[in-house]
């Protein structure tokens, strides 16, 4: 045989090389657990955690006078708030041959994806709890003709008014104005936890301040999009949507506005997040054919004062 030796004549023995730099996975911002008040329940103490809030007493503005007769006594009463923990978990079964043949360290990725699964489950549970329990108010001042309407500054004000009238405390302090071009002060604020599809509607709103225009952006959360009136919005791709739920059967976007200590994030002592790995000699003792890895947790989210959290419902004004 004569002639040039090309790759047709002499191909590489192996055509691919797997890059050991694995591709990034999509990781949503987990916004629904960020405002939860963490509390731990003791083991061997039942599965229901009871919390108690005493009711305020009436004021006593009438003078006692100069007599010796006692005024009427008030009764001290309390409200009990209960929550029952549940167990959650998922796992992988990894065949031994998978570990032996694949070029990348599969178990490393397994651990990483399991960790993400746990945190996303937590976030979903917090979101679901708020969907069911946070009292709804509809946006009605938007212009799209639906009910709820698209979000407007007035709707934001109404939601904040409701919370403040119930004495819900703001989450964030004021950001004072500074002498910087293009910036503005930001009011004391509740966080609004919503879906990323709302970003265009927020951008369109009169008075919206993007995070880039905050006078000081040293304490921003990654998911923060901007602020309107007394609400700073955290947006996530796993924000809450109720499908086809408006008057015109469009998707309804739930924006949760929790005040301080409005909901609990209860876990069980020593059981908040467990990574469980069973090596082949335990998972498959006869021939060590596979190993397992998983996570388990005991948890419940619970609204402790429904007057201190609001679900501001809206539809989109800017179509997707």
């Amino acid at each position, binding site marked *: 045989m004569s002639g040039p030796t090309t790759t047709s004549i002499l191909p590489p023995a192996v055509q691919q090389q797997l890059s050991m730099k694995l591709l990034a996975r999509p990781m949503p911002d987990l916004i629904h657990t960020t405002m939860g008040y963490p509390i731990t329940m003791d083991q061997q103490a039942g599965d229901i955690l009871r919390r108690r809030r005493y009711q305020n007493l009436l004021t006593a503005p009438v003078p006692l006078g100069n007599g010796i007769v006692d005024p009427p006594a008030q009764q001290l009463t309390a409200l*009990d708030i209960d929550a029952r923990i*549940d167990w959650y978990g998922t796992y992988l079964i990894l065949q031994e041959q998978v570990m032996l043949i694949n070029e990348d360290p599969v178990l490393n990725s397994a651990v990483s994806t399991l960790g993400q699964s746990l945190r996303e489950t937590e976030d979903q549970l917090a979101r*679901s709890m708020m969907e069911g329990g946070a009292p*709804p108010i509809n946006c009605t001042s938007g212009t799209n003709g639906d*009910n709820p309407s698209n979000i407007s500054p007035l709707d934001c004000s109404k939601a904040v008014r409701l919370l403040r009238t119930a004495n819900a405390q703001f989450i964030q302090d004021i950001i004072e104005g500074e002498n910087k071009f293009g910036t503005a002060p930001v009011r004391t604020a509740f966080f609004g936890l919503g879906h990323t599809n709302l970003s265009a509607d927020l951008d369109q709103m009169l008075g919206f301040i993007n995070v880039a225009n905050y006078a000081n952006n040293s304490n921003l959360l990654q998911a923060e999009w901007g602020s309107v009136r007394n609400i700073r919005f955290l947006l996530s791709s796993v924000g809450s949507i109720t499908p086809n739920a*408006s*008057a015109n*059967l469009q998707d309804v976007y739930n924006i949760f506005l929790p005040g301080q200590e409005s909901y609990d994030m209860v876990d069980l002592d020593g059981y908040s997040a467990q990574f469980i790995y069973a090596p082949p000699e335990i998972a498959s003792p006869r021939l060590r054919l596979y190993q397992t890895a998983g996570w388990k947790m005991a948890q*419940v989210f619970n609204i402790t004062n429904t*007057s201190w959290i609001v679900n501001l419902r809206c539809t989109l004004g800017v179509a997707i």
Partner: protein
Amino acid sequence: MSCQILTGSFVNVASTPKFIPITAQINEFRLWNLTRSGVTSQGIAGSLTSDRIVEAFFNPNLMGSGTALIKQNGTVAGVLAPLNNGVAAINGMSLFDSSIYAQGPTIAIASFVPGTTTVFTTGAAHGFRVGDNVRIGNMTSAPEMGGLVMTVTAVGSPTTFTTLFDSTNSLTSVGSVFKVGNINVQNQSLYYPQWRAIASISLANPMVVTLLVQQNYQIGDKVRFQIPTVFGMQQLVSGPNGLPIEFTVSAVNNAVGTQTVTFANVDSTAYTAFAWAAAANYPYGLPVMVPQGEGNTNNLLGVVPTPLPYANQNILGFATQNTGQRGILIGAGDGTNSATTGGIIGSTVDAWAWECISSSQTYY
């Protein structure tokens, strides 16, 4: 790692789908109607019956949701019946997962009759059952009803159904409706208790509140109300200081079609009447009853607290909990594989046995 076989039994409620919660992966599900096969079981006398489904098989990986491979009795002769093999095309079996949103087909609403309860007429057979939760929308001349979820309290005919919505102030309208769930299975929100939209509130002592969607309440549960001003009865919302007022439930009737909560210590006789606002006030917020926590029944009129003197100890009705479930839903119809009226569970009360296989490995 091993294959799991789960087994169980139940007695169905006539004409009512049966949900069996199963945490394990469901690879195959088999079902036997013992009663209609002539077997006496679980207190139900066997009765070998012609033209009834007596066996059903479902493999979610190989078969469409809501179907089943069935065996149906032929004509009974003495103590035996021949078996006919076939497919249940509707109301067979389907996997169910509370965390996954499921929506039924959209049905056109042709009209409704305004009244203290509302009877809707659809343009085509709706297929709803009593206890289904449906969402109304696109109501052209009654937009105030749009987006509301209501429990179906009666099915008058294949094209009519009733809910507790008080539409006295509404104009009849065309629109759309679809099923979003059933009172017996948790919705996508997973958690109990949930806020509920108010259908009506009485002007009476004690005050009675009727809800649009059934929920399981308990005496001693504590609630508050959030009612937009256009609905009236602002006395329930907040006191002179603007703070929300809380109320303790003294009696409940959770039956579908009643769906009432009674407040013995509330005399609403002199309150401003509650009424669903008319279309002129559209859009507005929802009037809702919001679960708040557990109360103390010691001071409730007409309620004997137990155990004395600590009448708050056994009240856990509003303990927040995740009631989501996974499992299999067995459809109901006339107990045959009829393409229009069929369903595995029929109109009789029967004893059933089932077997679920959770495979460790599946080969295709």
